[in-house]
């Protein structure tokens, strides 16, 4: 009787182990599947922001105010760029970044930053509209080094890592430009929800 019980126990142990391993492998496969679909699955979201890169950079180039219109023919004017960095975010939003989207999300922030060939971010500026004065818009895009400083708080500080977004949607647009006798990359990081 005891022998039969022992045999039964062994069988049950094997069966339960098989069951658990199957369950674990199944969960792992499902996770890998969804990880692989990560970028594709969310692209069907109807609320996803979609900004045409050419349109955005053309709007920046065609700014009517020459003091802050820093980009002409892929060339950045240093003086105008400094003026741009020192201009109020709401003013820049109204001048350049308004009307880029058919349906503007409730929260949207742009971080314009310039990266040199050594991958260092040498200039940065946040642009947003104060739709809701109770929301701290500038906190949505931040640099994780230097105590999570918001984009634009230190326009001339040098950062090594790209900024991060803590809202649901983020897209990064890039354009190579000439600045200070060298080719840099001008990025516009859009963070929205």
């Amino acid at each position, binding site marked *: 009787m005891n022998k039969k019980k022992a045999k039964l126990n062994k069988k049950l142990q094997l069966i339960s182990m098989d069951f658990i391993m199957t369950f*674990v492998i199944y969960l792992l496969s499902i996770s890998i599947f969804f990880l692989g679909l990560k970028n594709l699955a969310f692209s069907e979201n109807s609320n996803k922001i979609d900004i045409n890169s050419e349109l955005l950079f053309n709007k920046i180039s065609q700014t009517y105010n020459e003091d802050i219109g820093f980009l002409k*023919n892929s060339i950045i004017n240093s003086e105008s760029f400094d003026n741009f960095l020192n201009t109020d975010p709401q003013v820049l939003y109204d001048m350049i970044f308004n009307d880029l989207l058919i349906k503007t999300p409730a929260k949207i922030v742009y971080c314009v930053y310039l990266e040199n060939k050594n991958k260092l971010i040498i200039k940065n500026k946040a642009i947003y509209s104060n739709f809701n004065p109770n929301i701290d818009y500038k906190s949505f895009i931040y640099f994780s080094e230097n105590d999570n400083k918001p984009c634009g708080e230190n326009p001339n500080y040098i950062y090594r890592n790209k900024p991060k977004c803590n809202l649901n949607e983020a897209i990064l647009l890039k354009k190579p430009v000439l600045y200070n006798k060298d080719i840099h990359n001008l990025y516009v*990081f859009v963070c929205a929800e």
Partner: protein
Amino acid sequence: MKKAQFFIIDAIFSIIILIMGYLMLFSNFKIENQQINIESQAENIYKIFSEIKAQDLCFDNYCNNKKLEELYLNNEINLNQTLLDVFAELYYKNKKDKLFDLIENITLSYDLIDERYGIKIFINKEEVFSKGKNFLKAKEKITRQAIIFSFYENKETGSFIKYGPYIIEIIIWNEI
């Protein structure tokens, strides 16, 4: 009983690891979706080559791009022309190795080509630069073309030598 205990402990560990994995996957930290589509990529690289002059990257005796500086100091190129004109000048002078090196240096050091895309550059249908493997398999290719006429000064004789017209073709495709 001991075996059962071990199995249960293993299962608990794997469930903990899976839960940690799920939390990491679906956490609030968002990686940006880089929206450099193929048209933007082609337009970006074409504009840099056609709008930036070689002298824009140089001071009196040195350039920020070392390949360009080497060519300039050896009197192999004229700086007062766009990068596309510089490519055509090197092609005309049959310095195709230096042409390849220059294009490779500029595209790599300034990160002009996203790793998702391949690029070929042709001058008068002759391939002068290539980066990427899936040109033939690519379903979508974008082309930008320019016709180049230019000239350079022969510093020994003081005469101006014209070259061209050359058709420069830049083709971008999806590597993925």
